[in-house]
C-alpha cells in the first residue's frame, strides 16, 4: 500500500532499544520496526512479523489470576491460554494482566517521538562513534517513515545503519539507502527453490537490491545466518562466496543460528525447531568461505 502524503509520519515499532552494541559500531539505539515481508522459519523475532500491534502471551508468567477474563469483550482471554482466533489485538487484557503474562507487542510511534527517543542517547552515540540502527522486522517495509527518519538523522549528523532482509521495492527506499553509513544485508540462500521453500519468496529481488547497494558504494556487510540442514551445504556456500566476492565485493559475517528466540515463538503461537550449529562446523564454514576468497569477519559486527 502506497502511503498518502497527508498521513502523519509515523509507524508501528516493536521496540526502541538503547545501549545496543551488536548492531553496528559503538553504542547505538536500535529501532525495531514491526512487520516483515519474509517468514523465515528460524526467525528469532517472530513478534515482528505482523505490521500491527499484536497480543503476546508469556506462559511462564501467568499466575492464573483471571484478571484478563473480564477485560476481553470477545470472551477470548483466559488463564494459561495464548492468542485465540478472533482476537483483535486490542490489548485490553494486557492492560489488565498484573503479571506481564499478556502483553501488547508493538505500538504506533510518531516520527517526532522516535527522534526524541533516539536523541536521548546522543551523547553516548557521539562519544562511542555509534548512532542509530534500523532493524526489525523490516524497516524498508515502512519506506515513508524510514526515509523521513534517515533524512532527519542525516541532518543531525547521526551515524546510520540499516539491517535489511533485502526484499523491498527499490524505488521506495532508494533515498533512505543513499543516506546510510552502513548496511547489513542478509543473504540466506542462493538457490531459488530452496529460498522459496524456507522463506516464501524467490531470490531475484533480494540479489538485485544487493547489487544496487554495492553499485551505490554504500559500505555493506553481508550477514549469513547459518542454519544446519537449511543452508550449510557446500554447493550453496560456494555460490554465495562467488556472489559476495565477485559481484558485491563485500565482507561477510557468519551468524550461527541460536535458539534464544524460541520462547518468543511460543508467545505468538508459531513454531520453530532448528538446531544450533556446532562451533567446529561454524569454523569450517568460515574456512570454506575464506578459501573462496571472501573476507569473513571474525566476530560480530564491527
Amino acid at each position, binding site marked *: 500500500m502506497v502511503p498518502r502524503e497527508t498521513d502523519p509520519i509515523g509507524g508501528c515499532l516493536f521496540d526502541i532499544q*538503547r545501549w545496543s*552494541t*551488536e548492531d553496528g559500531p559503538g*553504542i547505538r539505539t536500535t529501532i525495531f520496526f514491526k512487520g516483515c515481508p*519474509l517468514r*523465515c522459519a528460524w526467525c528469532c523475532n517472530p513478534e515482528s512479523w505482523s505490521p500491527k500491534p499484536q497480543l503476546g502471551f508469556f506462559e511462564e508468567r501467568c499466575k492464573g489470576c483471571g484478571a484478563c477474563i473480564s477485560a476481553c469483550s470477545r470472551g477470548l482471554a483466559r488463564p494459561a491460554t495464548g492468542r485465540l482466533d478472533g482476537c483483535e489485538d486490542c490489548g485490553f487484557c494486557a492492560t489488565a494482566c498484573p503479571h506481564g503474562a499478556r502483553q501488547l507487542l508493538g505500538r504506533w510511534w510518531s516520527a517526532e517521538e522516535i527522534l526524541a527517543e533516539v536523541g536521548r542517547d546522543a551523547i553516548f552515540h557521539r562519544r562511542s562513534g555509534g548512532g542509530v540502527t534500523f532493524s526489525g522486522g523490516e524497516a524498508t517495509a515502512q519506506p515513508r517513515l524510514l526515509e523521513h527518519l534517515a533524512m532527519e538523522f542525516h541532518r543531525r549528523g547521526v551515524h546510520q545503519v540499516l*539491517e535489511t532482509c533485502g526484499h523491498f521495492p527499490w524505488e521506495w527506499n532508494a533515498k533512505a539507502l543513499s543516506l546510510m553509513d552502513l548496511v547489513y544485508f*542478509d543473504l540466506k540462500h542462493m538457490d531459488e527453490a530452496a529460498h522459496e521453500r524456507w522463506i516464501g519468496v524467490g531470490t531475484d529481488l533480494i540479489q538485485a537490491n544487493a547489487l544496487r547497494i554495492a553499485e551505490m558504494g554504500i559500505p555493506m556487510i553481508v550477514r549469513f545466518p547459518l542454519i544446519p540442514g537449511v543452508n550449510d551445504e557446500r554447493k550453496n556456500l560456494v555460490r554465495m562466496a562467488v556472489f559476495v566476492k565477485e559481484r558485491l565485493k563485500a565482507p561477510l559475517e557468519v551468524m550461527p543460528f541460536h535458539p534464544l528466540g524460541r520462547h518468543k515463538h511460543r508467545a505468538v503461537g508459531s513454531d520453530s525447531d532448528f538446531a544450533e550449529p556446532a562451533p567446529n562446523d561454524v569454523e569450517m564454514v568460515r574456512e570454506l568461505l575464506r578459501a573462496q576468497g571472501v573476507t569473513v569477519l571474525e566476530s560480530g559486527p564491527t
Partner: protein
Amino acid sequence: MTTHAAVTEPARGAGIFPQEGHPAPTARIKHLREAWKAVEPRLCIERAAIYTRCCREHPGDSPSVRSARAFKAVCAELPVTIYPDELIVGNPGAERRAGSVDPELSWKWIEAELEQFQTRTQDPYVVTEDQKRRLREEIFPYWQGRSLEEAYLARLPKETAWVTVDTGVVDNDSKWRAYVGENTPDFQDIVFAKGFRGILDEAKERLALLEPMDSERLAQMEFYRASVLSCEGILELGRRYAEEAARLAARESDPVRLLELEHIAGICRRVPAEPPRDFREAIQMVWFVQVGRVLSENAVALNLGRLDQYLHPYYVKDMQKGSLTPAETQELIDCLWIKLSEWVWAVSSNTARFFAGYSAFQNLTIGGKRPDGADGTNELSYMCLRAAAEVRTHQPNLSVRIHSDCPEDFLQATCRLARLGMGFPAIHNDRTGTAMLLAAGLSPEDARDWSNCGCVVPHSRKIGEWTSAVNINLGSALEFALNDGRCRLDGRQLGLSIGDAASIQTFDELKDAFFAQLSYLVKQASIATVVAQQVHSEMAPRPFLSLLVEGCMEKGRDLSRGGAKYNVGAVLTGIGLADAANALEAARTLVFEQQVVTLPELCQALDDDWAGHEDLRALALKCSKYGNDENRVDSLATEISERYHREIRSRKDWFGSPFNSAFMGISNYLPAGSVVGATPDGRRARSPLTEGCSAHAGTDHNSPTALMKSATRINHESHAGGTLLNIKFTPGALRTDRDIANMASLIRAYFELGAFHVQFNVISAETLKAAQAHPEEHQDLLVRVAGYSARFVTLSKDVQDAIIERTAYERV
C-alpha cells in the same frame, strides 16, 4: 529481525592489557599472598596495652603530649617482625592481619562484644582468652570514665542522642567509637622533602622560639612537643626494623635473601629519618608512614593519595641510572598491595554492617591531571592497575581519575581491570572532582591535585575534613512524613510530630512534610557532628597525622583543631535518594493522580508490609522508578538532592566551614534499610535502601545509558562530599575488545554529562549464588559492595543477597 544476534567471542587475553594473558605475579608475590590468605583476621591488643600503660604513668600530660608519648612507646615496644620474602617491611600489629583497638576512644563496645568477636557473621576476628583477660583486667578499668565515647555521650543533647545514637536514622557511630581517619599524607611537599628527622628539627626550632606567654602559645608548645615525640617514635620504629633486618641477614644462609635483607637494613637506616633517594626507599617510606598512622589511630580511610605521581620522579631517576627495572618496580608495588591488605580495621559489629568486608578504605588514586594541568598518567599508573589484577586482595581501594584527554589505553586498561570482577577500580571524573574542591575553597592547583578518600570522596593532602561524618536516612524522613514522625516498625517518635497521613491533602503537602522531616534530621546530624568534633578537639589529638598535613606545623595546631591548610566542612551523607524519590512518585501516582487508594489506606498497606495488599503492591511496583531516564521521578530525585544540599550548606561544622552533602555509599544502605518499614514504591519492610545515586536494586530496567542520564540530572558538583553510581555488568557483556571500547565510551559520555564516579560490578548472578552455597570454592571472588571491594565470601548473607539482586545488564 531476519538476522541472528551476533555471537561474541571470548577476549584474547584475560589480562588488563590486550596483548597479555592472565596476570601473573612473581613467585614472591604468590608466596606472600598465600601467607596472607592463610591467616585469619585477629585482634591485636599490644598497642592498647602500651598506650594504656603510658597514660597511667603520665597522668599530668596534656592530651597531645600524652597521645604522642604513647605513640612513641608503641613504636619502641611493638614486636618487630620481618616475614619471609618481604621486600617492604613493617607491621602495625604484633601479627599478620591483626587489627588494633583504641580503648581511649571507646572500650564499651569492645567489652560488650568481646565474646562475639570470633563468632559474629560480619567480619569476625580471632581473639584469645589471654587477650580477653588482659583487656578486662588491665585496659578497660583504666578507661572507665575516661574514654571519648563517654564524654561524647555525656555532652550530647538528649534530643539529639535520642535521634542519633544507634537508631540507624541518623548515624555517626564511627565518629565516636573510633578515630576519624580520613587523612591523606603529603608525601610530595612534606614527608619526602624533609624526612622525619627534618620534621623533628623543624618542630624543635619552632618550639625553641616560643615562650609560654598566653594560652595560644601554650597550646602551640604542646603541639610541638607532641610533634617531637611523634617523630622520635617513627624514627625508632625505622631503627628497629633496620636492626631486625641486619640481625636476620647475619643468620641467613640463602645468599639471595641475605642480600635482600642487607638491602632492607640499609633502606631502613635511611628512611623514615631522611628523605628517600630512590624508588625503594620512597616506597618503604610510604609504608612506614602507613604503619605509623595505623598505630596512632585504628581508623578508616588512611589514604595513600596519588601514589603514581609522588613516586614517579624516583622511578624515572632509577630508570635513568639503570638501578631498577620495570619488573622490579612492579614487584615492589605488588608488595605494597599485600602490605596494605595485611592489617585490618577492627570495628564494632554495628560498624561492620556499615563498612562490610574488613575493608579499611585505604584509598590509592592514580591517573588524572597534574597540578600544572598536564596529563599525569604515567608508567606507575599502569603498574598500579596491574598490581590490582595480579595481587587480587581487597586493599587498597583503587581509584582512577579519568579526564577527557586521558590516554584511551589507560581508560581501556581500567575497564579491563573492572572486567576481572573484583569491583575496582572506582572510576572518577577528574574535572568534577576538581570542581568539587574548588567549590570547597581550594586553590586551582590544589584542587587539580585531588585524590580520593575512603570510597568516593574527593579529597586532598592539604585538607582536614570529616569526609564521612554522618549518614542520614532519607527513607526514614519519608516514613516520618507519612507517620507523624514515628518509625513504622517500632513506633518510636524519632521525627517531628507534624501530622500523619490523614492530615495530608495534596502531593505538595506530602513533599513539604518530607522536607520538614529531612530538615529536622539534618539539624540533629549537624548537632551530633559539632559535639563530636568538639570532643575530638579536646580529647583525641592526632599528633602523628598532624605532621603529614600542611598547615599544622606552620600554625602549631593539631589536625583535630583545624591545623590543616584547608578545613573543609564535614560531610553528611544521604542514604536512599532513589527510594525517597520512588516513594514520593508512587504516592503521587496512586493517591493523588489515579486515586486508586487514599494515603491512610496506603499507609495501612505499609503497616501490614503489603501482606493482603499484593495487588496494590503490584501497582506500586509499576510506578515510574528513578534510573530509567523518566522525567517524572528523576526530577523528584533532583529536587530532593538540591533541597538536601541547601539544607546542609546552611549549617556550619565546628571549624566554621559549611557542611557538605554527599550521596555515596559504604554498605550503609543495608542497615539504613533495616530500620525503615515498607515504603510506597513497593519496597518491603527492612529491605535495603539504595546506595549513592544508584537506582534501587532491580528497578533500572531500561539501560545503563538511561541510568546514567537519570543520575546526571543530579548536580554532582554541588555534592562535594562525593556521589556514587554502581552499575552491575555480567562478564558476558564485557568479553570482546569492542565491548571494552564501548564501556570506555560509556564512561567518557557519563563524565561529559557531569557525573563524578562510576563503578562496575562485573559478576554473574550464577557465580555469586554458587559462591554463597560453596564459599570454600570461591575465596578469591571480589565484589564491589558499594564504594569498595570485599571478598564476597566474607560478607554476611544479606549483603550477598543484595549484591545478587542488583540488575544485571545481560545482552541476549
